[in-house]
């Protein structure tokens, strides 16, 4: 187990170095100057040059890259060009929205998907199974931003049960915060739940065809007992993979939903920073997201080993 974890860890560290190089130098080539953006149409070239000096943009790319990386290692993510506040603070503010939203959506999708998937698999070929397959097909096909707008029109504009969007902040209370995240989480969870339910169902059906299930049945277990005790656990590997991927997607890819519900999350921060060429912010947030994705993959790898003892032994 230890050696397995160590090799995983080394590959994690290497991925981070490569990612930091890619992120930094790709953004270097993108045209657009943050100082010119901030000063607008009337500023003279001298004023723009003065601001560039003030922002530290005069230094060469290699110097700035090293400064950025060494800063990050000590927890200093730099200062945003446009907002003039430390990037670490901004990320901390935004992650208080993005992380709970991603977790809420993931919890919702898992809670719906797993029972539905198992239920459909155990009734393979029945009308219920066909119903689940049809509904999840629809869930995958419906774009989440469209579904989000529908939710807003019904629950905010017509019924007025929820706000159309925005986030009051956790200072306003746990309930107010959760309420603001409810509609976005549902909009995010629906397509994810549909995918997950389908994966759960097909993984379980595969396992149910295995020899050990027949053996279990032969030993006198009922179909339900065999399913619960032996099949579900074995079907979890592909499901875990999908959950890991979905979490990364929900954390980094919620940007459209954040726009529909005007939530101050990480996605909107990056989007705004890109258009303003606030490169420090873009670099740091993307790096953080890469780190989160790699970390989740790492944890999922470890979870495989926990679920499947065969993976713990070196080949």
């Amino acid at each position: 187990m230890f050696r397995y974890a160590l090799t995983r860890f080394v590959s994690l560290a290497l991925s981070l170095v490569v990612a930091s190089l890619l992120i930094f130098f790709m953004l270097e080539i993108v045209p657009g100057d943050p100082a010119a953006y901030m000063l607008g149409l009337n500023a003279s070239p001298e004023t723009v040059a003065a601001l560039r000096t003030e922002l530290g943009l005069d230094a060469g790319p290699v110097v700035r890259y090293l400064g950025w990386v060494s800063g990050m290692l000590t927890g200093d993510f730099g200062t945003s060009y446009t907002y003039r506040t430390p990037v670490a603070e901004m990320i901390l503010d935004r992650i208080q929205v993005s992380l709970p939203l991603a977790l809420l959506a993931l919890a919702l999708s898992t809670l719906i998907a797993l029972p539905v998937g198992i239920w459909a698999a155990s009734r393979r070929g029945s009308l219920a199974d066909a119903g689940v397959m049809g509904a999840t097909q629809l869930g995958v096909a419906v774009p989440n931003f469209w579904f989000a707008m529908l939710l807003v029109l019904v629950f905010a504009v017509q019924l007025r049960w929820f706000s159309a969007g925005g986030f009051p902040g956790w200072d306003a209370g746990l309930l107010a915060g959760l309420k603001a995240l409810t509609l976005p989480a549902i909009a995010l969870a629906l397509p994810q739940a549909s995918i997950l339910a389908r994966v759960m169902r097909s993984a379980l059906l595969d396992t149910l065809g295995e020899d050990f299930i027949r053996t279990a049945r032969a030993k006198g277990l009922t179909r339900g007992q065999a399913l619960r005790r032996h099949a579900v656990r074995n079907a979890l590997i592909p499901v875990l993979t999908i959950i890991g991927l979905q979490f990364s997607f929900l954390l980094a890819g919620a940007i459209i939903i954040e726009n529909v519900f005007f939530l101050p999350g990480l996605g909107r921060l990056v989007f705004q920073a890109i258009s303003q060429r606030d490169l420090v912010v873009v670099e740091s947030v993307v790096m953080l997201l890469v780190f989160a994705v790699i970390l989740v993959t790492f944890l999922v790898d470890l979870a495989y080993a926990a679920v499947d003892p065969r993976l713990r032994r070196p080949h």
Partner: protein
Amino acid sequence: MKRLSLALAGCLMVLAGAAAAQRSDITIGMQLEPPNLDPTAGAAAAIDEVVYANVFEGLTRFGPDGEVLPALAESWEIAPDGLSWVFNLREGVSFHDGLPFTAEDVVFSFDRAMAEGSTNAQKQLFDGINEVTAIDDTTLEIGLDVPKGSLLSNLAWGDAVIVSPASAEGNATNPIGTGPFRFSQWVQGDRIELVRNEEYWGEKPALGKVTFKFISDPTAAFAAMMAGDLDAFPVFPAPENLAQFEADPRFSVIVGSTEGETILAMNNARPPFDDIRVRRAVAHAIDRQAVIDGAMFGYGTPIGSHFAPHNPAYEDLTAKSAYDPELSRALLAEAGHPEGFSTTLTLPPPSYARRGGEIVASQLRAVGIEVEIVNVEWAQWLEQVFTSKDFGLTIVSHTEPMDIGIYARKDYYFGNDDPVMRALMLGLDATSDETERTAILRAAQERVADQQVNAFLFQLAKSGVADARIEGLWANMPTQANDMTGVHWKE
């Protein structure tokens, strides 16, 4: 029982009435969030839309219709030679941190803006000022190199507001001014809150609390208004929804003018647009009303030069470049392009440009000019078009007030170098006589239209939506501002 329920109903009505009378908070929607809150260190319109006239004040200020009014300066006298202005400042004014406002603060603010290495985005407002001196706490003298007729209106800009040396550095995140509202909190990405300044020197505003909420997506903005999350959206991003609001008695639609001359800019420094016949051909190929109807849902006023129609000195010159595709083709042939030519049209993100660009492109194609549309982000537009001047055509709205002076600049992005305009602008600055100024401004409008530096499309309209019970919002936008001082809920 009946009596009881009547009494109850009475109580409820009293309660409801009290609640309505007490309403003193307002939530305003804005499409873009300001990057910071220091109007002296950035050009973003969103900064002024939050702080102008609310948090910060200058010596003078713009009124609802663009008139220049006294603010922190009560009155002023000009020396006969026009080279020295003496301002009498208001007494008993203090900054939000309690420090008194004096002439020294004005000296500090202006010196800071004019200094070498200053990052004031409108540094040119202070051109020609050679010295700012405090005579005593409430008297200030500004010495000029040459007479400057535009001084009062220049000092009314958000970029010329008065800041305190004690707090200037922190204004980006914690703005401290002298205005009727003080900064309360900023939840980045979501909202900014201002509260009434109880120590304000002038008439205190009716509103106790103003919240600016940032919603960039037009559909989300519509939903937020409909759901009652917002009380007003002064610059509503989706003109296609305005009819729906207009039909709804809960809302009022407020349409006014802005300082935004929307132009089809041409690269005068590069062939074929260095030929005035080609530029005129482009202008005559465009049906302005079709662009306004198609791209702006009818909101906008056609213009024939770079000047705002609501300005008293405005002259309607649209006839000089009336829609005439026949004439356009003839001009092209005369200029040596009987088969037309091909060029690029670079479009920044706003809908006036993206939607307007499609219509303009098809109108140009109709006379034989093959247009390739290139959509860019603002940062790219600034770099490619504005700074590197690497473009053929572009559509952009120039929202700065009274900015016809850009046609006298040598290195401006549309690449016209016009000594006649430079002479006119020097003459304009040299006089503060209104009749004379009007005559010069008319001459400048005509010059720009005759030279057909650009094709002039329309004056951008300001179309906003508000709860029908709100009064006092500005209809026009003479400068980027949401002045909340006169806003109140109807009884």
